[in-house]
């Protein structure tokens, strides 16, 4: 099977520094220009094109990057990722409506809350076998929603309304309908997240996660403090989810338990699996495609979850490495057998 990821990496590696900078800038420019392409074939008939760019697409991309740290990098199946998204959103909702703190001030608090709950849940749960972790996190995601549904202070089923938009930054106003501005802000957050993940993956932490994913016992016996790294992965993933939640609440101005169902966790999981677990570009591609298509093709928007479920089954059985698989390629090597697939 062709490996687009390797093709891309090859081009990247052959390029010299200015060429790389040029490539990166043009990619970012292309992403930033997307809001202006609403009139073209990209337009979404069902929802407002620019708002689709913000949610689901950019939001999915951000969350998929976060979940990828957990599941793709270190092989921990977290089925309750929505919990961290919800915690970020409710932090924004509560503090935004009851205190004078603004979005930018709440952002670090929301991230901290998500990380904190990541530790509370992760420290005991990560001692268990992988499939038990899946069930525990699944339950946790659902519990957060039920708690929101039943606590007066969180507004019960009515949720929280009147959440403030972010205050102007550098003179840029965040009007509730200026989707473009939100999109660009998210783009910056996404770029930061990509930078963080890439930075971590090439060094010691990346190797530790990779060794845990492939053979945890061997990793531990080779001196890798596996538990510590698993908690780190889990908490880092949570922090990205929390950031997405804060921003989401500040964009929609209204949140309710219904926004944070199990389905969100599964959707993000599908993005990660579809794109290619462990490879950040694959994950981004997966989130863009799965976020966009249901709004582009009318049939898909009704059967969205059904299709996503099918995606999971089909991908796992036929192409478990996803659209753009993780690294399979070896550097500078004439040997033919090196491109063999693992299965």
């Amino acid at each position: 099977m062709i490996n687009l990821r390797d093709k891309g990496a090859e081009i990247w590696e052959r390029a010299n520094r200015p060429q790389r900078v040029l490539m990166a800038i043009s990619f970012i420019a292309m992403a930033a220009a997307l809001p202006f392409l609403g009139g073209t074939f990209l337009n979404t008939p069902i929802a407002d094109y620019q708002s689709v760019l913000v949610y689901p697409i950019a939001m999915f991309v951000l969350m998929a990057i976060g979940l990828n740290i957990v599941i793709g990098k270190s092989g921990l199946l977290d089925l309750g990722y929505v919990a961290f998204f919800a915690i970020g959103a409710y932090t924004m909702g509560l503090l935004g409506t009851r205190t004078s703190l603004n979005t930018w001030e709440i952002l670090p608090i929301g991230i901290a809350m998500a990380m904190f709950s990541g530790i509370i849940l992760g420290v005991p749960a990560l001692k268990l076998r992988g499939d038990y972790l899946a069930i525990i996190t699944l339950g946790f995601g659902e519990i957060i929603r039920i708690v929101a549904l039943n606590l007066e202070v969180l507004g019960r089923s009515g949720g929280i309304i009147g959440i403030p938009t972010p205050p102007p930054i550098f003179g840029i106003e965040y009007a509730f309908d200026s989707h473009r501005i939100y999109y660009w802000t998210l783009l910056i957050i996404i770029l930061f997240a990509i930078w963080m993940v890439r930075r971590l993956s090439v060094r010691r932490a990346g190797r530790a996660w990779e060794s845990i994913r492939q053979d945890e016992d061997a990793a531990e016996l080779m001196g890798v403090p596996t538990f510590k790294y698993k908690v780190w992965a889990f908490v880092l993933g949570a922090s990205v989810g929390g950031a997405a939640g804060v921003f989401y609440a500040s964009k929609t101005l209204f949140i309710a338990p219904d926004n944070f169902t199990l389905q969100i966790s599964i959707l993000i999981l599908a993005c990660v699996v579809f794109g290619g677990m462990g490879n950040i570009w694959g994950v981004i591609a997966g989130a863009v495609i799965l976020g966009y298509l249901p709004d582009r093709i009318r049939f898909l928007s009704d059967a969205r979850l059904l299709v996503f479920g099918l995606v999971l089954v089909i991908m796992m059985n036929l192409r478990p490495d996803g659209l753009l698989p993780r690294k399979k390629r070896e550097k500078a090597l004439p040997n033919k057998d090196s491109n063999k697939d693992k299965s």
Partner: protein
Amino acid sequence: MSTSILSLKNVTMRFGGVTALNDVTFDVKEKEILGLIGPNGAGKTTVFNVITGVYQITSGSIEFQGKSLAGEKRYKITRSGIARTFQNIRLWGDMTALENVMTATDTHKRSGLVGGLFGSPISRKEEKRDKKRAQELLDFIGIGEYADRLARNLPYGVQRRLEIARALGTEPKLILLDEPAAGFNPAEKVELAKVIRKIRDAGYTILLIEHDMSLVMKVSDRVVVLDFGQKIADNTPQKVQDDPRVIEAYLGVPEDAS
């Protein structure tokens, strides 16, 4: 006689009703090659597993450099200076040979996740140093040319040796080799014997499980024999070979094909 680096005292390991190790006592002395042999199911790999903390022993004690290993976390045991290889190769297949060794050398890094994130000078220096060290180890074992190949694509013999290089990456004082010659042809075995001696000469202590008698007898300074979880001999290779109890233990059981 030199000092002992590892000592097992009256070690017993039971799994439910099965006694895998029964009152086993022996020492590994510094800078020696100690062969650990016995018929199939004698408990050799179990010895490795109790030393490295995979299993907690039922009774007895294990001391490494005078410190008890009881209840110690597995990665800490490795960091204190004991490394092992696996009988059934357990490399990280999706990583290159070099990365496999580097993951093990990471054991000795000081910079944390945050340092790695911001590319702190310590982290950058360590990264460089580790890469160099990992390449040195691959060269030392004689597989330097395979550094950038994915572990799973390597020939079998190279994988076996990469396991040794990876174990050395943790900078151990004692290295446990679990059937490093399994599946090797005679020429490869000769080559491996040289490597094992070279490792010892570089200052490491070696505890070696091996089925191939001629290899064990050739490289070991001393041999411990297990049978049904009990130690039945502990002597020089020559004396062990003449020991009637050892001969009896091996006669009853067909020797491994290798």
